[in-house]
């Protein structure tokens, strides 16, 4: 179980969660990035050269 760095809610990570994966907090809706087995950080903000 990880903690949402924005609202503090507990976030359950799937077994196949990938480091770098972007998920959403069910409580506050924030986009979060998986940084480890039980750790999260706020997802990076979109930059001007992001895309396809």
């Amino acid at each position, binding site marked *: 179980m990880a903690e949402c760095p924005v609202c503090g809610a507990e976030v359950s990570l799937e077994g196949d969660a*990938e480091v*770098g994966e*972007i998920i959403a907090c069910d409580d506050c809706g924030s986009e979060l990035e998986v940084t480890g087995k039980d750790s999260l950080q706020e*997802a990076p903000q979109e930059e001007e050269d992001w*895309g396809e």
Partner: protein
Amino acid sequence: MKVGFLHSIIRKEEKLLLEEFRNREGIELIKIDDRQQFFDLHKNDFDIDVIIERCVNHSRALHSMKIFSDHGIPTINNPEVAETCGSKFLTTQALIKAGVKTPRCFLAYTPESALEAMEHLGYPCVIKPTTGSWGRLISKVNDRDAAEAILEHKQILGSYHHSIFYIQEYLEKKGRDIRSFVVGNDCIAAIYRHSEHWITNTARGATASNCPVTQELHDISVQAAMACGGGVVAVDVFETDEGYSINEVNYTMEFRNSIDVTGVNIPEKIVDFVLKEGRQ
């Protein structure tokens, strides 16, 4: 075979590709996070047979692939494809040079000459940053008043990139355009992108449905891909009364909304291509 997976954030597409690679036998997958990587430009620190690029930043993708490629490591896509597809100007140039139909387009360097170009082209027209994606900062210019306002905003508020004015003919899409997926010499699938809005990117809320790949669509998609250097690309196609017209070609393609509606396992096709390139 050692496959380098160059990435930053892991989105649905990257997860599907990672899963597909891990399901293959004899593959050692090496994840390379561009945010944590630095490169010694004088030597190859990588024991890798092939790189698949899945960066979300165009600039990082372009630089990284150039480094890998110059060390003799094949990259999917190659840096020349990234350079061409990463610039709407270079893409248009490549399409024109190859004789692939594309909307009429002008380039100008000052607000005054850009306004003159728009008056010459007629309204509505579209002005876009030469680098950018997901429909970001593209503007449909309906009249001279709007043109003057947008050009003034770009001049005062825009970064260096906005000092190049890329002006494109506006084509009425009638609520949809086509996104086709090319892998090597094959157009493997296509979707219609439906939207009430003139911007039809799925990243901006357009919905996807299957688009049958006719011979005509297949051929122009592959021609557009080859004009930009080939590889694994997604082609944005307009339907016009005179046939298809190619808007853009994307080199780090997104396909999350296209697997179910087309029934084509897109990540499987991409991985097949990467492994084939790695074996050569």
